[in-house]
């Protein structure tokens, strides 16, 4: 598990403060996942809930957390495998029935709203905005690689310089070893 440098911790603390809407130097439980994401992690909601101790819906809305309690949680999430661009492309490729670099927008919508950690309709609309062509297909992989990736998909990966080819399944199954750990701070600096 990598240790954060004092500089990084200062960065995190400042970003943490940005989410404090009340002014008590704390954030609500239901903001923790988003703050971690803003700091370069990308945990699932389930893993965050686990770290928070499986809070109830009431806890999520009302309980609050200060930075000192938050930092070890961030460390724990940082230790988890994050995955890279290629994994993401592999994920999209699953829905590429014809294997030609496109997925059907409609299918993606159904999948994202019914499987896994379901996304809401407004979330999906925002994600898909302007991505579907006249046939309703989304081109997730261009001929020349990164440059022609549709905008939101592209921006996810602005931070990854080396495209390391990883085993998609190994990545996703919980029993695998860590493959690629990038210190969150470096990711943050490229925001």
């Amino acid at each position, binding site marked *: 598990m990598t240790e954060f440098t004092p*500089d990084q911790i*200062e*960065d995190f603390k*400042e*970003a943490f*403060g*940005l*989410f404090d809407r*009340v*002014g*008590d130097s704390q954030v609500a439980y239901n903001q923790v*996942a*988003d*703050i*971690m*994401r*803003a700091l370069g*992690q*990308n*945990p*699932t*909601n389930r893993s965050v809930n686990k770290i928070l101790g499986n809070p109830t819906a009431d806890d999520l809305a009302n309980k609050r957390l200060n930075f000192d309690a938050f930092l070890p949680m961030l460390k724990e999430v940082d230790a988890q495998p994050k*995955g890279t661009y290629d*994994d*993401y492309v*592999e*994920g*999209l*490729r*699953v*829905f590429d029935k014809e*294997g030609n670099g496109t997925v059907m927008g409609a299918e*993606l919508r159904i*999948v*994202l709203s019914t*499987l*896994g*950690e379901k*996304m809401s309709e407004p*979330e999906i609309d*925002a*994600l898909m*905005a*302007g991505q579907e062509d006249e046939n309703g297909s989304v081109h997730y992989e261009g001929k020349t690689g990164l440059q022609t990736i549709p*905008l*939101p998909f592209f*921006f*996810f990966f602005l931070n990854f310089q080396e495209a390391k080819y990883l*085993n*998609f*399944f*190994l990545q*996703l199954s919980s029993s695998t070893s860590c493959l690629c750990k990038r210190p969150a701070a470096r990711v943050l*600096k*490229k*925001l």
Partner: protein
Amino acid sequence: MVRCLPGSSHHKGTNFTMKAAVLIQRWYRRYMARLEMRRRYTWNIFQSIEYAGEQDQLQLSSFFTFMLDNFTQLNGNGPDLISQLLDPVVDPWLDRETCYNLIHVPESYTGPRLSFPLSVADTNALLSAFKDQQTLHARYVLQLLYETKKLLKQMPNIVHLSTSYYKEITICGDLHGRLDDLLLIFYKNGLPSAETLYVFNGDFVDRGKKSVEVVILLFAFLLLYPDYMHLNRGNHEDHIMNLRYGFTKEVMQKYKTHGREILQLFQDVFSLLPIATVIDGKILIVHGGISDQTDLDFLSSIERHKVSGINQLWPPGVRKNNFLHADTLIPTTQQCSCQIVDILWSDPKIQDGCSPNTFRGGGCYFGPDVTQRLLLQHGLQLLIRSHECKQEGYEFCHSGKVITIFSASNYYEEGSNRGAYVKLGRELVPRFYQYQVSRTTRKLTLTQRVRAAEGSALRALKEKFDSQADMESFYICTRLASGRVSVCEWALVLESVLRLDLPWRTLRPHLARLAPDGSLEYQSCFEDMGPGIPLPQVTPNLAETLFRYRTDIEIIFNIIDKDHSGLISIEEFRQTWRLFSAHLGVAIDDSAIDDLARSIDFNKDGSIDFTEFLEAFRVVHKLDSKDQQLHEKMDGEKRTG
């Protein structure tokens, strides 16, 4: 084509698809979280710059107080300058010499010709004229203001309304010269009438480009339907705020001949606006907020036109109970002033208690307990206020007892926020209506909006970086031959020099480069600034101080420059600067000021062109003129397109 991946022979099946879905969802949520963070710090930047400006404003008025208190100590021309700087305060109550009927309106004028008393035909004519970018003739503006002043004199400080006579009341917040938002509200909600009552909660002018049109419409409806239209005073309904935030400039640009007279009447009218409205004895509407000193009965009794919203406040954030000036002890004036400042400037806070509003430099932060106490004391159930921009156009706080309503959409930047208005029926349950004016018909995605706002905020922030002299001297003090400094030190310098409380570390990637060893190359902050005219050779202290207070100096210049010609005499410049430096406690010797004055007088004719002066410090606001050009271009497109 299916990739062959080791360790997985069956990679079809729902388990597989679900994991893929989870992966996509994770990445998407991460992206949204980072976008949200960018949005938040962008908002912080805009708000900090806005409030810092207002804070400086109050410092300026404390300077005027200082002059009033101390002018006897100045040598020679002191008193003359003072009387020049402070318009001999004509009691707003008195009738000014207004000969609007002597002003000739040419045949070629195609705008509305108002006839008083106003009728619906007049207000309709105004609405269509303003939609067509026409300007109302000065003669009618003066007459309108004259009539408005007469009407307002009859009004109490606190206006009481009742829903038993009217079906619904609509309350709107800050408009800040946004004509489009006002027209949108009238379109969505209807024009003021017996069925549609309106309360406009202050800040009609400044910042936006159509303040004149907005306020003329509001006053016109006020004259047409004094029972259905109500206006509260805001902190921007004040001539010193107008000098700084654009209303004065707008009036002078649109009315070159009669601008001064018009501004004087506006001054009177603003000071006569009521400060609060109460509905059914249950709902209090004020522009800013309240404090633990707020006493509605006291406020009802004072002569509101005699009290300026921001005078007599020294220093910002600290409330004096007595004047230190020996024989002119007027505690009641001080109290009046404090109470009105609180009403126009305060903001709510989450924690209990009441503390000075250091962010704004005037008024307080009031907590839920203060709200509770006041509401209880007067048998009220709700406080509606404006004064703060909110992303959704409105916001509840203090357990639903306080509503903030803000009606200028896209206030900071295209797409930054919605505007809203609130309607109350007989049951006094608030219903909110939101809207957003958009210049183009194409709808921007959230990413595009955040990016646009962020770019604009960072540009505005970089403009503040111009005070290189300050920063240079600081760095010299902190031992750096290499031009490097740690991120921590850099953040500290910026915060102390710019006096903006922002997340500097998070913003760092947009503002400065890091060296390979992790330290910060501070020179990279000043890149793409553009070269400025080299400063005249003066002591560094003077240059820095002049620079820091450039906005205040500009305002003072504008006051001295009576005919708004852009020129003042060297002697006046010298005196002004001497006064100002005495106030600031900065020791400047006369010869340095003289040298500076002479060097600024580029054409050696004994007068100083203020624009050249400002240019010397690279302070002419580049964005302003670019904005103007852009608006003109877009207006042109709108008309033809």
